[in-house]
């Protein structure tokens, strides 16, 4: 890797391990097929096409790769869920919706290294037996859609797509499908409905697990952009060797996106679990802004539960149990889950001591209230109620009891909806109240108890208490 030069000011941090982002911000790099092939591109595809498709899935299983889209589900295991006696067409979908607030990694792969994704996708299609695949790109990436279309045309021209790829007898086609600005299209079954030309209302699981009943009710594998890129490197290194990157059960590298109140926000590719929160925030990101100190961190996209920076966590069970400060937590799936949050999509949002938590929560509540698809009552109504309560909190017209109401609304959504958006919108509220209740309460006032917050409210109050009006 020593011969690779990066654009001045965009060099990777020494603690990074660039695998997927090897070519991002690279001097002399462009998204063309020519450049990619000169760098050894598509050799892994050539090799994979000589393998038994099942053996590819086995390598991916051996690599321990866990999905980078949010849930961290093992990719090889997911591929294995396609019913063995299936006779229907199989589809592969690349989830390039990248809509979880705080996440901005797929953007750079799509814009700067589209052929890495295409190579990973064709290998994955071969492994799962898919002849038709789609890249679902969010509408707000018009340039990425354009770059992908061009890259796909180049690949088709060079027989890396289409009929009888590289003389292997394998046919495969990939198309770009653009979304239209809805977060819920990132949820895999919402995405599938959207791709079918309908409103993106998520399907209930069970029974609609995409691997068995997905696009057009056929077996469908949905994977995140970054996950599919890893497949190429697993073929190059071998699953066993790949699994030595990172830590056991949390293998490989992943791209962490840091935004908010740090000196150097940005994207950093690290070996999973080899860096602690403190190392990431202080060493790699340059610490807090001058004169400030860190207050709270959302570690895995806006849906992940917020963590307090001065907190300690008990990790592990029995004899292995240990207490770690927030800054000593290693960045991996299992530790963050044990600490009550999640690694999610890798989007780390940092807040310093200048931030009001009521304002932060209100901003997130606005997002979720806007993005609920409206299918389930708890989510549709609840997300808006939660927004309204935090609107009042920010405006100074909330009462202490509103905090309890807010909490109870969140718990009445969580676990009671069709899709995981229910958790995505209620976890931030639950965690904020859990960690910052005193601060939230301090912005309320007893004197706001019982005041009317809308014309209907006022009419209702007059009706119920006619003598006082």
């Amino acid at each position: 890797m020593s011969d690779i030069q990066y654009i001045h000011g965009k060099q990777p941090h020494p603690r990074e391990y660039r695998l997927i982002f090897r070519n991002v911000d690279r001097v002399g790099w462009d998204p063309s097929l020519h450049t990619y092939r000169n760098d050894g591109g598509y050799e892994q595809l050539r090799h994979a096409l000589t393998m038994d498709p099942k053996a590819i899935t086995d390598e991916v299983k051996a690599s321990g790769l866990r999905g980078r889209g949010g849930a961290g589900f093992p990719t090889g295991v997911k591929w294995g869920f396609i019913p063995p006696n299936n006779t229907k067409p199989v589809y592969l979908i690349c989830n390039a919706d990248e809509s979880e607030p705080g996440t901005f990694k797929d953007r750079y792969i799509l814009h700067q290294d589209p052929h890495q994704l295409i190579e990973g996708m064709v290998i994955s299609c071969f492994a799962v037996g898919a002849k038709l695949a789609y890249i679902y790109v969010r509408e707000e990436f018009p340039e990425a859609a354009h770059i992908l279309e061009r890259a796909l045309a180049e690949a088709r021209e060079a027989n890396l797509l289409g009929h009888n790829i590289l003389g292997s007898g394998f046919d495969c086609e990939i198309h770009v499908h653009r979304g239209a600005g809805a977060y819920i299209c990132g949820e895999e079954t919402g995405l599938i409905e959207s791709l079918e030309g309908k409103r993106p209302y998520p399907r209930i699981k069970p029974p609609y697990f995409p691997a068995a009943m997905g696009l057009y009710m056929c077996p469908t594998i949905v994977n995140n952009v970054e996950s599919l890129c890893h497949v190429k490197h697993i073929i190059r290194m071998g699953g066993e060797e790949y699994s030595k990157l990172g830590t056991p059960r949390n293998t490989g590298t992943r791209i962490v996106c840091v935004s908010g109140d740090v000196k150097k926000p940005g994207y950093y590719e690290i070996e999973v679990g080899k860096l602690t929160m403190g190392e990431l925030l202080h060493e790699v990101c340059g610490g807090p802004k001058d004169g400030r100190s860190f207050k709270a961190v959302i570690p895995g996209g806006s849906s992940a539960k917020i963590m307090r920076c001065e907190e300690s966590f008990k990790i592990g069970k029995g004899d292995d149990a240990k207490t770690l400060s927030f800054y000593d937590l290693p960045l991996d799936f299992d530790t963050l889950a044990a600490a009550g949050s999640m690694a999610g999509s890798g989007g780390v949002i940092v807040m310093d001591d200048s931030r009001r938590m009521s304002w932060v929560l209100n901003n997130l509540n606005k997002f979720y209230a806007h993005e609920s698809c409206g299918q389930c009552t708890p989510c549709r109504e609840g997300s808006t109620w939660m927004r309204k309560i935090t609107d009042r909190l920010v405006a100074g017209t909330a009462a202490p009891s509103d905090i309890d109401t807010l909490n109870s609304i969140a718990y009445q959504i969580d676990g009671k909806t069709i899709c995981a958006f229910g958790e995505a919108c209620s976890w931030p509220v639950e965690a904020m109240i859990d960690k910052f209740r005193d601060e939230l309460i301090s912005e309320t006032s007893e004197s706001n108890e019982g005041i009317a917050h809308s014309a209907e409210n006022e009419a209702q109050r007059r009706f119920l208490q006619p003598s006082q009006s």
Partner: protein
Amino acid sequence: MSDVLNNLVASPQTPGTKHYTPFAATDDVNAQADRRIAQYPPDRKRSAVLPLLHIVQHEFGFISSDAIDWIAGRLGIEPIKVLEVVTFYPGLRQTAPGKYHIRVCRTLSCAMGGSYELMEKLCELTKADLSKMDPHHHPIVVSPCGTWSVEFAECLASCGTAPVCLVNDDFHEGLAPEKASDLLKQYND
């Protein structure tokens, strides 16, 4: 059609209307549609509804009721099935935006970086009426001259370079509020 349905497909004029030609199913538009429809299995033409809507919005600025009827005809589905899609997605418009449509990200990292102040500044400069901007529904506000329109968007997936926005299909990052006027100057014509 009932009034309710009529209202749902109506596209009232805006100051931006003058920048767009009315929908027409030209040879070019039909050829673009053919290419998109061919991307899906022959018995799954309905999948092309979003791609066709994108063609229309790109060429004609917004989705009119004529366009909805044309798409329904091309895909062999009822117009209501096109309309239900149009009314769901925040990225699809039923009225003309300005010549330049600006979408400012309002989600957490951008808000911390000053995107609400950026929006205020943009509205001040373009004379778009900020008070018409309901923070929940993100409606488009067109400037009186019709050159500009503004809208809030949710996280545009570039939180590390906040605040960010899209102007038509161009992406702009690191837009501290004081850069608002330089941004507009790039499009002044």
